[in-house]
């Protein structure tokens, strides 16, 4: 198990390095002119040149990457070219926003998709058809549309939950929950749809298996049969979908954060990307890839825990 973990972590680090290098190269090759955007429309060419030198942009790309990498290894992700904020501090401010909505959406999808998937597989009939219909609908409607409807109807018209803004958990637990509910729900809709289908399919297959029939014939309670045996065997497939959903949710967060005016990693990534703010883009990319790697390792561990057959040495 330890060897497996070490190997996965090493592979993860290589992945982070490869993606970081590619991103840096792409940022340099796009030919965007961040300095002109920083100094404004009316700054003189001398001011542009001075700013360029201040940011080190007069040095070759390889040298700049070397400096960035050396600093990054020591935990210093640099300074935003536009706001002069430390990228590390800025990520520490923004990561909680994105993680709050993504993880809440993941939690919602895990719980709701299991309930819906199991119910559809066990009850079948009208309920099954309804769940399948809702799943297709949930999958087809883009999250930005769901977000817009939620923000306007629940946030503005009904006034039940805030239409924009984020309250940190440290400030107020209730406020935090209120501020992330609509964004998380908007994000979760698609994930619930996809995962519920997977849970339903796996459960239907497992419930047909011989060992379930054998267990049932031995008089085991239906609840134990469903949750101790059937669901445990159906879970790995659903878990894989959920792990993939996590990556999708991080991508979806970009749009949802914009609609709800949340200053998370997603909105930061889009604005920094369009401005050509290389230090911020690099910081966001490294942190997000690292999170995805960690989630995947955790999912592998969970996979092994649920199904001893796949445990590897």
């Amino acid at each position, binding site marked *: 198990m330890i060897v497996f973990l070490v190997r996965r972590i090493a592979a993860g680090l290589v992945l982070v390095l490869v993606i970081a290098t590619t991103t840096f190269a792409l940022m340099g090759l796009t030919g965007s002119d961040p300095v*002109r955007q920083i100094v404004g429309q009316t700054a003189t060419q001398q001011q542009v040149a001075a700013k360029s030198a201040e940011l080190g942009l007069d040095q070759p790309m390889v040298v700049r990457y070397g400096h960035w990498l050396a600093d990054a290894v020591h935990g210093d992700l640099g300074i935003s070219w536009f706001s002069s904020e430390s990228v590390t501090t800025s990520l520490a401010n923004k990561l909680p926003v994105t993680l709050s909505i993504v993880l809440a959406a993941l939690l919602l999808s895990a719980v709701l998709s299991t309930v819906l998937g199991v119910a559809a597989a066990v009850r079948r009939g009208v309920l099954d058809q309804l769940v399948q219909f809702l799943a297709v609908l949930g999958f087809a409607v883009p999250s930005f549309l769901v977000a817009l409807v939620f923000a306007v109807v629940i946030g503005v018209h009904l006034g039940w939950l805030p239409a924009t803004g984020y309250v940190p958990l440290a*400030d107020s637990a209730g406020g935090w929950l209120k501020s992330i509910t609509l964004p998380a729900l908007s994000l979760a809709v698609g994930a619930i749809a996809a995962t519920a289908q997977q849970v339903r399919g796996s459960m239907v297959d497992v419930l047909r298996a011989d060992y379930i029939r054998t267990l049932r014939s031995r008089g085991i309670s239906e609840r134990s049969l469903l949750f101790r045996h059937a669901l445990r065997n159906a879970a790995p497939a659903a878990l894989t979908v959920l792990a993939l959903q996590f990556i999708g949710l991080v991508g979806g967060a970009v749009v949802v954060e914009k609609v709800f*005016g949340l200053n998370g990693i997603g909105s930061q990534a889009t604005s920094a990307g369009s401005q050509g703010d290389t230090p911020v883009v690099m910081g966001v990319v490294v942190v997000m890839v690292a999170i995805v790697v960690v989630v995947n390792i955790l999912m592998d561990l969970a996979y092994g825990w649920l199904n001893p057959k796949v445990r590897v040495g």
Partner: protein
Amino acid sequence: MRRIALTAVSAVLMLSVAACGSGSGSGSGNAATGGTLTLAPVIAAQPWDLADAGLGNNAQYYQPVYDPLLRLSPTAEVKPNLATKWSYDAARTVLTLTLRSGVKFTDGTALDAAAVKANLLHTKGGSSEAAGQLTSISGVDVVNATTVAIKLSAPDPSLVPNLGNVAGMMASPKAITAGTLKTAPVGSGPYAMDKSATTAGSTYTFVRNPDYWNKAAFPFDKIVLKPLTDPTAVLNALRSGQINGALLASAKNVAPARSSGLNVTKYTSGDVEGVYIWDREGKIVKALGDVRVRQALNYAFDRSTIVKTAKQGLGKATTQIFNPAGSAFDSSLDSKYPYDPTKAKQLLAEAGYPQGFSVTVPDVSSVFPDQQAAMVQQLEDIGIKVKVDKIPPTQLISALLAGKYPLSYMTLASFRPWDTIQIEVAKSALWNPLHSEDPKVTDLITKAQSATGATQDALFKELNTYLVDQAWNAPWDSVESNYATTKGVTFTPQAFAAVPPIYNFKPAG
């Protein structure tokens, strides 16, 4: 079940970790109570160091903490502020300011002549738009604690009003020396940043500076700035009362804002958009060197229809690059080139281009799709073949400033007449990329630089009239903006400002 439990536990753990790393911030906005004014700037905050400060929308960030030397009225008249008196010498190259005594920065440092000198030289040494407004300063002399003499390399008719904006704002010299201003502002303004209620990038909270000398001019106890870049998020935040005021960047949001009971005020933002002819001497496209061709371009555009359709009504048709609030503007010039494609074709034929000619313009369709379509169509209607050169939007400004294109659609900020001249008209101006020169233009600029009052205004008008006659550009409209406020708050628009300054906001009733 264990799977669910595992997911739930890991999620809760990660959420707790996430929460621990968060800064504090105020999430619940206040309704307009008169106590707190919450505004949503549509752009992200720049560094707090004034050497890096931009103008336009950026000014709202600086106004709570930094007090300027002078104050501008809504019509941009210059009024005393930190400087109570100011006067030029006969040559107009030394500006002497008398400072208000007893003013202190929030770190206790005195605001005296030495502080003013440190600030002006520091901002001037920067590399942003505020620095650009101080380029004429050649030195600053401390005469005594409350008197400062600003020396200029040449007369600068815009300097005094510019000292009433970001370029004239004062930061603590102690903080300038310490180099801490980029992330933590220290000023002598009406408010001070409340760091415990500020999260960079999402919420900036400013509370009253108890020692401020002019509290009456700032009725709100607290100012909160929450940058929101998405027009839908802006509208939703306004409608749900989470913010009190914001620019409606999308004209589509005006009707929903009005029907939600918000006050929507339309005002001239100061930008002038349309076709800028960079190649007035025909260096790239020979035809453009002929005034008749440039006039033909002016007759080719149906300005009011462009404003109505491409701009959704947000603009005032004009033929002038000067701001309507400035003394160079002459409303009679706006009727100089009515939409007349026949006349345009006739002028082209007279100039020897009966079949038109070809021009290459940069692609601006990703940012201004409707404007680009209007430009291409109306130029082609008079026989000019337009080739659109695909370049990324981030390279547009550099390419234009490098003089790559003979003409293009563009929107440029238009401030006071002298600023516009310095930015767009003078031979060495940044936005005169092919360095067009005309002896009459140069002569009028030279005369206006040293003139004052009505004489100077008349010279500005004469220059503007000449530029319109010579069709130096083919502007379409002075851009208009819509600013929405909730019921409890009112504001007065400010001349030459993209958004109203915080001191123009008042609680309603």
